[in-house]
C-alpha cells in the first residue's frame, strides 16, 4: 500500500467532463489502481477537506486539478492541495487556460449573478434574491463561498508543475501523461504532457489534401455546408483551428466531421492563442482592401472571443472584458 503513488483529484469551475474522462480510462483505471492510491477525490471517494488538512505537507505525490478558479472555495482548496502535494498538474482546458467557463470573463460578476438569478427567462425570482455569503437557514447560519471577480486559470493561483490539455483530455492523453509522471523521468517544469509539440495539422490525415494556398471569400459554419470528410476543412471554407492548436488528440473531432475548435490550446512558442488564431485567419482571408475585410469580419465573425478564445480567455493577454470599476476584494 505504501509504495503506491498517492494522488488527489479535485474539480473547480468545470462541467464534470474531466472527471468523466478519468472514468473513461475504463480497464486502464483498474490496472492503474495497482500503482495509484487515491487519497482525495470528492466526486468519487469519501474523503473530506479536513482529511487533507490533516495530512503532512508534501505527502500527496500528485494532485490533478481540473476546472478554472471561480470561487474563494476553489482558491482555498487548491492552495491547500499545493501545500500537501509534491506535484500539481492542471488537468484539462479549464485548469490549463480557463476553458469555456472562462468566457464569463466577458461579463462582470454582478452581470453574471443578476442574469443567472434574476433575468434569465426561465427564472422566477420576484424578490430579486441574490446569493449571500452568510444566510440564515434552518440549521443556523450558512456560509457560502464568494464568487471571484474573474475566473482564473489554475497557475494564476498556485504554482503548477505540468499541464494536461483537452476538453476533456482524451483517455490516450491521460494515459500517456500518467506514464510520464510515473516513469520518474520528468520533463521540464511547465511542460504540457501527453500531447504533441506540433500543431494538429501534423497528425491530421487531411493535411496532405490542403492546397498550398487557401484564400477564403467567405466562411461557412458547419451546419451550412456538406463537408467532404476526405478534404481539409479549411480548404472547404470551414474554420478549423488545427493549425494553431497543439496536436495529440488524434484529430478526433476532425474524424467525426467537426473542425478543431482549439481545446488543446497553444503550442510552446505561442503566448496568446486567440491572437495567433486571428492572425492565422487574417492570412487566409482573400480581401485586399480594408472596407471589404471589415465587412467580412462583421458578417462571418460575429463572436471572435467565443471563436478564438473559447478555451483560454483567462490565460490570454486580454484576460476578459476590461472592467472599469472593480467591486469585491478578489480577482
Amino acid at each position, binding site marked *: 500500500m505504501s509504495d503506491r503513488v498517492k494522488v488527489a483529484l479535485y474539480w473547480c469551475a468545470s462541467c464534470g467532463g474531466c472527471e468523466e474522462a478519468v472514468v473513461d480510462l475504463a480497464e486502464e483505471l483498474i490496472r492503474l489502481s495497482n500503482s495509484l492510491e487515491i487519497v482525495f477525490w470528492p466526486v468519487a471517494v469519501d474523503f473530506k477537506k479536513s482529511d487533507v488538512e490533516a495530512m503532512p505537507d508534501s505527502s500527496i505525490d500528485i494532485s490533478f486539478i481540473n476546472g478554472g478558479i471561480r470561487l474563494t472555495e476553489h482558491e482555498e482548496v487548491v492552495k491547500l492541495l499545493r501545500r500537501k502535494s509534491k506535484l500539481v498538474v492542471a488537468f484539462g482546458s479549464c485548469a490549463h487556460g480557463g476553458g469555456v467557463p472562462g468566457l464569463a470573463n466577458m461579463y462582470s460578476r454582478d452581470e453574471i449573478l443578476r442574469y443567472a438569478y434574476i433575468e434569465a427567462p426561465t427564472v422566477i425570482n420576484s424578490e430579486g434574491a441574490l446569493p449571500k455569503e452568510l444566510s440564515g437557514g434552518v440549521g443556523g447560519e450558512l456560509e457560502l463561498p464568494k464568487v471571484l471577480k474573474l475566473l482564473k486559470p489554475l497557475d494564476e493561483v498556485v504554482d503548477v508543475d505540468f499541464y494536461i490539455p483537452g476538453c476533456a483530455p482524451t483517455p490516450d492523453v491521460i494515459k500517456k501523461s500518467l506514464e510520464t509522471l510515473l516513469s520518474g523521468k520528468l520533463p521540464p517544469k511547465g511542460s504540457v504532457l501527453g500531447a504533441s*509539440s506540433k500543431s*494538429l495539422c*501534423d497528425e491530421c490525415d487531411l493535411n496532405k489534401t*490542403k492546397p498550398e*494556398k487557401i484564400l477564403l471569400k467567405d466562411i461557412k459554419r458547419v451546419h451550412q455546408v456538406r463537408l467532404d470528410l476526405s478534404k481539409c476543412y479549411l480548404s472547404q471554407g470551414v474554420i478549423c483551428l488545427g*493549425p494553431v492548436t497543439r496536436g495529440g488528440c488524434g484529430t478526433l473531432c476532425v474524424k467525426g466531421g467537426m473542425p478543431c475548435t482549439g481545446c488543446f490550446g497553444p503550442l510552446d*512558442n505561442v*503566448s496568446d492563442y486567440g491572437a495567433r488564431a486571428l492572425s*492565422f485567419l*487574417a492570412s487566409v482571408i482573400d480581401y485586399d482592401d480594408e472596407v471589404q475585410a471589415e465587412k467580412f469580419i462583421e458578417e462571418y465573425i460575429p463572436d471572435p472571443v467565443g471563436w478564438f478564445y473559447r478555451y483560454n480567455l483567462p490565460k490570454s493577454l486580454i484576460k476578459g472584458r476590461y472592467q472599469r470599476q472593480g467591486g469585491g476584494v478578489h480577482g
Partner: protein
Amino acid sequence: MSDVRIGVYVCHCGKNIGGVINPAKVAEHAGKLPNVVISRDYVYMCSSPGQLLIEEDIKKYNLNRVIVAACSPRMHEPTFQGVLKRAGLNPWLLQMVNVREHDTWVHENVPEKAEEKAKDLVAAAVARAAHLYEINTVRAPVVKSAVVIGGGIAGIRASLDLANAGIKVYLIEKKQSIGGKMAQLDKTFPTLDCSQCILTPLMVDVSRHPNIEIYAYSEVVDVSGSAGDFKVKVRLKPTYVDWSKCTGCGACVEKCPGRAPKEFDEGLGVRKAIYFEFPQAVPRRPVIDTEHCLWFTKGICKVCEKVCPVGAIDYKQVERYVELNVGAIVVAIGYELYDLSKLSEYGYGKFKNVISGLQLERLSSADGPTRGKILRPSDGKEPKTVGIVLCAGSRDENHVKYCCRFGCAAAIKHVYYIKHALPDAKVLVFYTDVRAFGKGYEEFYQKFRSEENVFFIRGRPAEIFEGRDGSLIFDVYDSNTNQLINVRADLVVLEGAVVPPKDWEPLRRILKVSCDPGGFALELHPKLRPFETTSDGIFLAGAIQGPKDIPDTVAHAAAAAASAIGFLAKGYVESVPYLAVVNEDLCSGCSLCVPICPYGAISVSEKEGKRVAKVDVIKCKGCGACAATCPSGAMQQNYFTDKQVLSEVVVLAGGAK
C-alpha cells in the same frame, strides 16, 4: 558562445544626446545590468576614435555582444557592424538603441524622464542581446540578361541602354510592333518635333541590335525563380503568318478584302483583316485578325495565302511558349487612357465629335485617317470652334484622383495643331489649373495662350448636348470672371485621365509587385529609389510607375536600365540577414505561410513523410509576415525572433528591471 559578454556604448552625438541627458549616467546604469562586461560613453561614437574604442574593447574584454546607444540604426547600424567585423565578430551581434530620434530629440523638454527612458531602452537591449546569434548571408550568381516588358519609348530606351552595356535583352511586346503610344503621336511638346521622326530610328536600332531579341505579339504569362535567376515564361500569340519566312512586302495586306476599325488610329480609320499595325512597324510583319478575316469567319477567301510570294501564311498556327532565363526584369508597359465614356456628361462614344486627345493626334498625323487634316468625324467638315477639356476624368473624386502630368502640355500642343491647320478657328481651352512645369513648358504655354482666337477658360464644362448638325452645346462656369459662358463648338477634345493598362493587374500578380492607390506599380522609395520595386531584380521604367510625359519617361527608363545594369554587373545576389527560418521540429506543414508571403518565397514539401515549409533564401526579403502568421511559432525571423522581441518587451513593460 555560451557566455554572454556585452559591451554597452552610449554616444553623446555632440549635444544631440549629451545636451539633454547625461550619457555617463546611462552607461553607469547599464554597467550594473546582467552580462554587461564594460560600458562607456563617448562624445562621437561614430567617429574613428569612437569606433576604435569599441574595436579595442571587443578584443580586450573578449566581448561577444555590442550595444550602441546612439542614433537610428538606419543611420549608423552599418558603421558599427563594420566595427564588429573588423574585430572578428559577426555583425549581427550588434544591437543599436536609438536614444536620439526616439528619445532626446522628442523629449528635449523633460530631460530627467528622457534619461530614464534611455536607461530603460538600454536595459531592454541588454535583455535582447543575450538572445542574439550569428547570422550569415548566402550568395547566389546572377544570369547576365534581362527581360524588358513593353516596347514603348520606355522599353525601347531601357533595352538599348542594357544592350549597349553588353547585356542580352529580350524585349516582350504585346502588340505586333514596338513603338507604343509615342508612335501614335503627331508631334511632341514643347519642341514640336515630329514624334515618329525621333522614335522610328530608335525602333530600328532596337531591331538591329545584336544583343536585343524582340518577342512581338507576345506576353509574359509566368515568372518563377528569383532575383538574378528568373525563369520568364512568354506566350507567343498566333499571328497566322510565319514571321521567319515573311519579308514584310505587304502584298497580303494590299489584296485583303477584310475590313476592321484601325486600333492604331483609335478607331477613326479602317484597316485590313491582315495588317501591319502602322507603316513603320518594327518588326514589319503582319498579323491576321481572326475576328474579321473571311477565312476564319466564313471559311472563304484565302487571298493572302495566294498572293504571298514566300508561302508564309499559316492558318493553322497555334500559340507557342518560350522560357527565358534572365537575371533582371524591367517593366515598361506604360499607361492606358481612362475610359472616357464613363464621363457620361461629356458624351464621349455617344457624340461623334467628342474625341480624345489621342484621336486628335491621329487626325493631325500625316499617316492618320485624314492624312493630317483636322476634320470632325461626323461629317468630315473643318471645325470652326474647338473646345479642349483638360482633366477629363483626372483630379476628380468620381474618377481618377491624381494628375495625368501631360494633359496640360498636350492641350497646348493641340492648340498648336488646330491653329496651324485651321488658322481661323477659335480654340477654347477649359482648364482646372495649367500645370506647365517641365523645361520649356511655361514658354510653350505663354506662346500659345496669347495667340489670336485662343481662350484659356478656368472651368469644366457642365453636361454637353449635341445639336442637330453635330455641334456640341454646353455651359461653362468661368471661375476667373465669375460668368456662365454658353458654348457651341464643332469639335470637343478631351484630355483624358491616365490609368495603368488592363493587363497590369495580372502581370503585377505574376511579378509580385505592389501597387499604389491609383493601381500603378509601387516604387521602392518615392524619391530615392523610384525605378526599383520591393522585389529585387524587378525594375520600373516609365509610366507604369505613374503618369509621365516623354522626357520624364525616357529619364526614368534610362535610370531603370542603369539600376538593372548595376544589379547585373555585381555578379551575385545576397540573401537578407533578416531571413525567415523554419524550425522543422515544430512545423506541422499547415501551409498558412505560403500565401501570406508577398515574395512567393515559401513552399511546403514532403520531408521524411512529413510536410514542412521551406524558405527560398534569395527570394525572402525578411518582411516577417510569415513569422507573424505561423500559428505554431515554428517560423521565426532572424534578428526578430519572438524571444528577442519579447525579452525587450518584458523589460520595457517593467517585468524585469
